[in-house]
């Protein structure tokens, strides 16, 4: 029953009149049961940018944005740990990145830290799987000084030995703590199973690799990795487009030519295995952490847009099939989702979440049902398809809010080799996706017969019910992913 008793027409009319000064020509009863029709969609305003090349060969992109006195500056390097680390030295990239804050030829670690604190910024250095970066955000006024410090950290790091030992010790403790964390256990074990230890995606940082890293490894990594021939310098925000290039050239004048973009060749994937439950025992755990998936396609796949639409329906939103069923309807979890890790290599498709221990088997049944469903057993409705597309398309205008957003939106085109008109073309590409595309990519990229199902949980209470579910054979693993 719709209750209307609170709808005093008088109060509504009077309030509107008093507060807005708008003329109330006729008093109407508000019909709250009608969804207000949306207004005209806002225009897509994609930031503009200019491209050029620095004297040392690095690409330069400048995007001006003057509504606030803020600047986002980054140097992005093509290639990451998968290209630049060896299996025996996993972790050297992270240690090198941290070591770049430990001092330069003219500033020790404390001097660097104090200078950056007084500028109200931090210079962040990160090396990810397929790219790395060094960058900062600052107010316009502090930009030149922060840039000079970044250049000093990039070009003149002193890499003190005592810092290496301290960072190594900290990372060893962090690794120990990661073994207490079900999510981190699952995120280490899953890639080992899917890609195998001969593939860089399947190789983890371990105590052994951390202990093997020497100062020479750090020096060599830095020298080989941070090279302008594979770099993009990007600045977004409140800068003067006609003078900022000279400022950057001057700050990076000692960064000598060299380096080239890596090839991103990966070894072949290991042979598939029939769908298997890999159970990692976490005695007494209140929840079971699930990761279910298989290798996926690279970002360059022509199926990218269909996959985005498909995954949005499956597990990309709150009301997507997985969360609507397993959280909202069944109450087995605080939240489940799914995603493709798109990159240059075969990034994984993963679905998962944390499930109350007693419902581990029931939740797995539902996960499998939804994975089968999106592949065809539960037809995609017109409304589902329309909502998924609307969600993806209408998200775009709001994504350029901050200087950091603008910077990363432009950089991601460069790292993935996408056209400058990518954002303008996006809506049309998503709109083109049809139900049959969704079905095709779901069946093609979610391989129901060869899934790895990693479950980290309390073996004593969940193994028997999982076995009884008959979904897949169970293999027991230790927390590193080795067979028990």
């Amino acid at each position, binding site marked *: 029953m*719709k*209750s209307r008793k*609170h709808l*005093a027409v008088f*109060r*509504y009319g009077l*309030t*509107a009149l*008093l*507060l*807005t000064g708008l003329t109330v020509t006729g008093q109407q009863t*508000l019909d*709250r*049961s009608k*969804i*207000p029709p*949306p*207004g005209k969609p*806002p225009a897509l305003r994609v930031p503009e940018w200019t491209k050029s090349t620095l004297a040392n060969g690095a690409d330069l992109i400048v995007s001006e944005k003057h*509504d*606030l006195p*803020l600047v986002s500056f980054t140097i992005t390097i093509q290639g990451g740990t998968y290209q630049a680390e060896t299996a025996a030295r996993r972790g050297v990239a992270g240690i090198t990145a941290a070591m770049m804050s430990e001092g330069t030829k003219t500033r020790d670690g*404390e001097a660097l*830290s104090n200078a*950056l*604190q007084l500028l*109200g*910024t931090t210079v962040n250095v990160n090396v990810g799987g397929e790219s790395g970066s060094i960058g900062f*955000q600052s*107010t316009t006024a*502090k930009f030149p000084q922060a840039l000079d410090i970044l250049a000093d950290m990039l070009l003149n790091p002193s890499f003190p030995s005592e810092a290496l030992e*301290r960072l190594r*010790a*900290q990372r060893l*403790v*962090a690794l*120990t*703590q990661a073994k*207490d*964390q079900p999510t981190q256990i699952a995120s280490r074990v899953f890639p080992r199973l899917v890609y195998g230890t001969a593939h860089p995606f399947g190789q983890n940082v371990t105590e052994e690799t951390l202990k093997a890293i020497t100062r020479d490894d750090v020096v060599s990594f830095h020298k080989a990795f941070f090279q302008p021939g594979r770099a993009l310098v990007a600045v977004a925000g409140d800068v003067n487009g006609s003078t900022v290039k000279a400022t950057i050239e001057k700050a990076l004048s000692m960064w000598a030519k060299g380096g080239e973009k890596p090839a991103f060749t990966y070894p072949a994937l290991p042979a598939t295995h029939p769908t298997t439950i890999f159970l990692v025992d976490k005695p007494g755990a209140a*929840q079971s952490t699930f990761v279910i998936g298989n290798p996926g396609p690279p970002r360059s796949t022509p199926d990218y847009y269909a996959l985005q639409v498909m995954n949005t329906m499956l597990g990309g939103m*709150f*009301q997507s099939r997985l969360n609507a069923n397993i*959280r*909202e309807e069944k*109450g087995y979890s*605080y*939240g489940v989702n799914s995603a493709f890790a798109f990159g240059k290599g075969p990034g994984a498709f993963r679905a998962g979440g*944390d*499930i*109350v221990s007693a419902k581990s088997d029931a939740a797995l049944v539902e996960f499998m049902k939804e994975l089968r469903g999106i592949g065809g057993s539960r037809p995609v409705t017109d409304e589902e398809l329309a909502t998924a597309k*609307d*969600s*993806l398309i*209408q998200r*775009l*205008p*709001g994504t350029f*809010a*901050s200087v950091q957003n603008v910077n990363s939106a432009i950089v991601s085109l460069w790292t993935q080799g996408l056209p400058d008109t990518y954002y303008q073309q996006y809506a049309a590409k998503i709109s083109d996706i049809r139900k049959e595309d969704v079905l095709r990519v779901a069946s093609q990229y979610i391989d129901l017969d060869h899934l790895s199902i990693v479950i980290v949980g309390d073996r004593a209470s969940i193994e028997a019910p999982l076995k009884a579910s008959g979904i897949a054979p169970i293999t027991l693993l230790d927390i590193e992913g080795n067979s028990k």
Partner: protein
Amino acid sequence: MRKQALLLLIVLFVCAGMVALPQARLSTIKIPFETYTLPNGLTVILAPDNATPTVAVNMWYHVGSKNEMPGRTGFAHLFEHVMFMGAGHTPYGIHDKLTEGVGGSNNGTTSNDRTTYFETVPSNYLEDALWLESDRMGFLLDTLDIAKLNAQRDVVKNERRQSYDNQPYGLADEIISSAVYPSNHPYSWSVIGSMKDLSAASVDDVKNFFRLYYAPNNAYLSIAGDFQVAQTKAWVAKYFGSIPRGKAITRPSALPVALEKETRLVFEDRVQVPRLYITWPTVGEKSDDRFALSVLDAITAGPRTTRLTKALVYDQQSATAVGTGQDSNEDAGVWNITITPRPGHSLTELETAADVLIEKLKSEGPTQEEIQRATAGLEFQFVSSLQSNLGKAMTLADGAGFHNNAGYFQTEYQKMLSVTPTDVKRVANKYLTKGRVVLSIVPMGKLDQASKPAESKPFKRAEQ
């Protein structure tokens, strides 16, 4: 919190809430806003800014876990979940469809003191967002039933498992709050509540709670982003104007506490590395001492030249990580230290080392340069927070709800920047006294790894 993917927003919210703008720049950079109140008591804050074509709507209710009754802990947060289950004219699911389904987002958060519901939508969906928020404020009970409550009860129990019970060190805050505050103090229990109390919540509890606290006179509506002011005022009046004012609310007493002596506890957890927590009761949002306590935090841990970090992580190398913080609830707060040891260093050693450093700070006070370093980043943080419509909407509503002044962020900034070495020395001596709680979290069966194990009492969890 309804969903888990909100860490970034919360961080932004904290930054925006804590800082404001240097005096010199206030004339050029600010949040232009206006505030007014509807006849039914709803406070409205409008902050137009068309830089990005989205609008953030933040509906702020002055109710949190401190308004709960003993035996019903966790109820305010459970109720937050129920608010997403549909209302009189807005069937379940339509809320997500008109936010996330059109490229926006939505979520809710519950603290000890307030509950917020917010959505960011493309600017052409503002009227829909107001329709959604007004329907659950006015008509939630029309469609409420036990099935909806039970469904979210299970979800919240899983939230508790995921964020507390199944999380290494996840119970630390709950244990500390129960030791800092007496058991009848509303800050002594956690926002998430106990499993037992969550099981006990009834539909009648939901109805009574809703009628008292979810009335327009207990609410603040802030809207920030790309919208027309006159049109928006008309919509606000149209959708919220007819919702009746609720009864007067008696707020619980949650005064700051002082501890006469040290309480020492040890808790066994499924961890491999022990950890030490030292907590002193301090002040909340309403006391200006929190500004000097925040600066004290900023000079004690963080960058490598802060005092505890420098000494323990860099010079003595006895810890891998050190953190400090002034956590301000509305009426009271705490100041705390967290230390993770390096292998071969005991919690006892670390507690003693930390005490020496704190005593030195208390007797000498900080230098002017330390204060400068601690506050130099505030301007950037503030200007940066202006890039988010949601961040702005949250900052304004917090000021209005807690200080009856949506522009309170400007006052806060002035007060942060005017903190002196003398102020920091004074609050360090006033609050960091022997009356404190020292908690050791140790691996199962390793009670001897506690700091001063002989003096530390094993903490037993109440029945869940």
